[in-house]
């Protein structure tokens, strides 16, 4: 099977700060994100979605098992979009992006092109604080995609934005995905967003967290936000979430 992001029998536990008890988040968890595929992770808060993302990003290590990236060496760069833009507020928009492209040894020109693509070319010399929340998140998207990433990780990237801005940015992500075709993980609480963006939606439940259901989204890109087949998937995701909720209640 062609590689991508591979979680193989991963276990991970954390000690709860207050009681000091060990909490098993993942146990024997396996998941494969194929090359060029975007997998959305949905499920209740605190179930371990962010842990999975951190493991894939190399911010954390599993207790046992393995998280592997199997991609050509020039496709191993990781771009990440967080819930908050996480920009260096004392540096200009352009500098924020060039710091990432310099580190990835990608020409700065790529960063400027990406800024134009997210319609912020005119704001290259602005400081992030002078931009709106949606514009700042667009800078963060440009930064993640400017480094020509093989892997893109997104942690609730649009949850802090209003519906219309979020919708624009989701379409932007779709376009960037079509242009660059990286592999990726998307954490979201917005089931419609999961259906719109992802190739597969993985519904997680339980503790330790396990895969409750995997829903394929059988719609090729570019997708329209109002496509009825996406609503169908969205309903299927919600049903899976509801049944897992009943199961645990």
């Amino acid at each position, binding site marked *: 099977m062609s590689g991508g992001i591979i979680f193989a029998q991963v276990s991970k536990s954390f000690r709860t700060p207050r009681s000091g008890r060990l909490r098993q988040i993942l146990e024997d968890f396996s998941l494969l994100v194929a090359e060029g595929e975007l997998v959305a992770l949905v499920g209740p808060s605190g179930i371990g979605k962010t842990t999975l993302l951190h493991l894939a990003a190399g911010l954390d290590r599993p207790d046992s098992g393995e998280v592997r990236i199997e991609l050509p060496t020039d496709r191993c760069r990781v771009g990440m979009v*967080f819930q908050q833009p996480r920009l*260096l507020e*004392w*540096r200009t928009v352009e500098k924020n992006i060039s710091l990432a492209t310099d580190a990835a040894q990608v020409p700065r020109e790529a960063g400027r092109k990406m800024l134009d693509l997210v319609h912020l070319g005119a704001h290259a010399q602005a400081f992030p*604080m002078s931009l709106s929340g949606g514009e700042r998140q667009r800078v963060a998207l440009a930064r993640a995609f400017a480094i020509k990433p093989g892997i893109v990780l997104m942690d609730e990237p649009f949850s802090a934005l209003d519906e219309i801005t979020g919708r624009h940015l989701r379409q932007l992500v779709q376009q960037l995905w079509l242009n660059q075709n990286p592999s990726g993980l998307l954490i979201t609480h917005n089931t419609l967003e999961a259906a719109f963006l992802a190739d597969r939606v993985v519904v997680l439940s339980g503790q330790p967290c396990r895969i409750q259901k995997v829903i394929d989204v059988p719609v090729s890109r570019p997708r329209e936000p109002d496509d009825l087949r996406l609503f169908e998937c969205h309903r299927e995701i919600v049903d899976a979430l509801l049944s897992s909720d009943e199961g645990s209640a």
Partner: protein
Amino acid sequence: MSSMIPKLDSRTNTTSVPVSQGSGRGQQWAGWLQRSVLPPISFLIIIALGWEAMARSLHSMLIPGLSEIALEVRRVAVTEGAFVQIGLTLERIVLGCSLAFVVSLVVGIAAGRSRLLEAFLRPGIILGLTIPGLVWALLCVIWFGVSWRSPVVALGLGVAPALTVNVIQGVRAVDYSLIEMAHIFHLKPLDRIFHLWLPAMAPLLLSGLRLGFSLAWKVIVLVEIFGMSSGVGYQLNQEFSEQNVAGVLAWTIIFGAVMGVIEYGLLQIIERRITRWRRVATV
């Protein structure tokens, strides 16, 4: 009372109350004078008048009047080459503070990132904070004699602990989510220092620098009294040995003024420069 009532517009029958009005440039200047210039100047005038009143009522050799002090200031500034002496003292302060700054940056960043190292260093920092500058001055004069090393090392030892505390707090103040971001995007080590750590720590570094400067001038004067043959401290000691109170005050006033210019001028310019992004953003 009638002026308090909003005017009724007879045509549209609606009220119009000014919520905010643009103020002219002249008004802004007047406001600035009233808020930022008048209070400190009034303070200085009141202190000077109080001193003069005390001098006149006590008729003491030990409390010279304002005119006598003013003459001394002129003598010191013109015939004693006060600014050359102040220059020498400032040079020592800058050297000593630079040493302290570099040391506390290295130690502070390391201790700020490792609780273990901080616990290990804590007694040293607390000891350093409590030992009076006088002790460092005496020791360094004994160790290094009349050389440039005495003031520089004494200042380094006297200023570094306070500055280190600020650096540690600065490191702790850096937003962890940005450190994560830098890690994921593999930002280069130098970029992390100059574009993430230093700017994020800038406000605390700057307040540390202020504190360091004010500590430095207290230590340097002592070193110059005991072990140097030049500088403001040496001159103060000369005036003291001649029992010239007006001379002591004159040197203090001139040096205080120079330090005031550095504090209000130089450091504030630096501060405005490094916090530019905040102001540009709010415009």
